[in-house]
């Protein structure tokens, strides 16, 4: 982005545009810019360079508060439910996560609880093969909660490890589909106290302000304990995650940066902010 030579209106306009086109959102951008202007009025910022640095630092701090990698305790059955709206990258991300966790020494099992979408089970099956982990599946159109119930029974009979559950994509506005997830949660909790230990919401970085609505709804309806932001290998910046960190306090776990099995990275606040302004 073009650099302004002094702290003037053009600089604030340039920064406002950079934030908005990064999907940070107009209201929150307004707040960030206003707080910079206030610092300028109090003579706390001497130059454009310092101003830019302070803006990056402010955003990094907001994200850092929520930067929290997944910590899986050993010697227990640790269940992860993966949720989100249609097409965000849940199934692919599960494949990547399985591969990563296996590499870290965990036993991993995948559960095909998307019994609705065409070839969803086959897609997860391919990923299970790629990650070399077992998959629990049932006949098409089976009750997703029943698949999860069976998977937990089977997990409890075996060795401790991580159970990752793939669910069907669903819009947060569909009450009956959100109810289906709630039912899945209840069944998990009854079958294994503490389950689900992690509910990962997968968000697509190309999504605009609706991502905040998605995060809020999924959190309010079924509880969300972690976030994964996918498709950051594209040109979208995923700036909504700054709003989500500030307004919803959901731990930021990973980012997806491609379609291959190792295109999963831990969420890093500093790197994220650098990439946003690149």
């Amino acid at each position, binding site marked *: 982005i073009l650099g302004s030579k002094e702290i003037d209106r053009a600089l604030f306009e340039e920064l406002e*545009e950079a934030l*908005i*086109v*990064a*999907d940070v*959102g*107009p*209201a929150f951008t307004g707040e960030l810019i206003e707080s910079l202007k206030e610092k300028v009025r109090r003579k706390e910022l001497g130059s454009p360079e310092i101003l830019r640095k302070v803006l990056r630092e402010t955003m990094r701090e907001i994200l850092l508060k929520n930067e929290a990698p997944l910590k899986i305790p050993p010697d227990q059955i640790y269940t992860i439910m993966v949720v989100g*709206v*249609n*097409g*965000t*990258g849940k199934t692919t991300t599960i494949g990547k996560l399985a591969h990563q966790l296996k590499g870290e020494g965990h036993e991993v099992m995948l559960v095909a609880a998307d019994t609705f*979408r*065409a*070839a969803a089970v*086959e*897609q997860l*099956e*391919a*990923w299970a093969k790629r990650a070399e982990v077992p998959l629990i599946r049932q006949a098409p159109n089976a009750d997703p909660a029943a698949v999860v119930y069976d998977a937990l029974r089977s997990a409890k009979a075996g060795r401790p490890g991580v159970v990752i559950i793939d669910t069907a994509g669903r*819009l*947060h*506005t569909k009450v009956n589909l959100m109810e289906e997830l709630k039912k899945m949660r209840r069944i998990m909790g009854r079958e294994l106290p503490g389950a689900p230990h992690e509910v990962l919401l997968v968000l*697509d970085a*190309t*999504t*605009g*302000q*609706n*991502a905040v*609505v998605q995060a809020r709804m999924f959190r309010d309806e079924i509880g969300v304990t972690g976030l994964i932001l996918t*498709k950051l*290998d*594209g*040109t*979208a*910046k995923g700036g*909504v995650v700054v709003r989500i960190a500030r307004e919803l306090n959901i731990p930021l776990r990973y980012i997806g940066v491609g*379609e291959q099995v190792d295109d999963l990275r831990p969420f890093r606040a500093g790197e994220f902010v650098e990439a946003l302004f690149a």
Partner: protein
Amino acid sequence: SLTDKLDGIFRKLKGRGSLDEENIQSALKEIRMALLEADVNFRVVRDFIEDIRKRAVGQEVFDSITPGQQVVKIVHDRLTELMGGVSSRLKFGSRFPAPIMLVGLQGCGKTTTAVKLARLVAAQGKRVYLVSADVYRPAAMEQLKVLGGKIGAGIFAAAGLQDPIEICVQAVEEARRNGYEVIVVDTAGRLAIDAQMMDELKRIKAQINPSEILFVADAMTGQDAVNVAGRFDEQLGIDGVIMTKMDGDARGGAALSLKAVIGKPIKFVGVGEKIEALEVFHPERMASRILG
């Protein structure tokens, strides 16, 4: 609502006979905010607000509606005009079979939409063939096969073929041999900045000469919509857009951004996961949705 906010702004200012620069200024700020919240692109908003200012200033204030309602009407009508005015019909041209190619980013709904479109075309009495050129995504071809099976469309069996271009060429040939009038081509999701994958689309286009290249866009797409669509249009040429997942609550500002940047019409909207869930695009409904 936006109208309430604008009414509040105009109420603060003493009643005047016409909309002038000063009372328009705060109103425009509110409208700009609403459009950005709706994910309309930053620069598209800037140009649009300037356009509205020119249209609104000097307009007489009518007795029958509030100034707030009047400004919203100006904005709503202009949005409708910008996004509309073009036919939603598919061009089949003189090719036989007429290839309709679907392209777009990963996960936006191409495969599902391919079958929805095939069903729509079949309902018009044409024999439709389907082909998946997606050799990358696990079970992508199976997905198209299962969905396509529900409408009884002919589906190309790629068997061992691994080259997307070869698959498309053979599928068109197979469709022609069997008297199909339209062939819907589902392509793999890809990034607009992936040169190799964009080149693949160009090569498919060169070989099968589509009568329509439709860009499939997710209704919840944010500011990046213009970058992506712009690149697809520059490199490939887009004839129209299908906006998916409109059954959600995303405001869908990308619809305005796309039209403003690539100038091609939104022909259809996806309104659900079922194969029947495809509707014709209504610009006035989209305008209301964007304004919130």
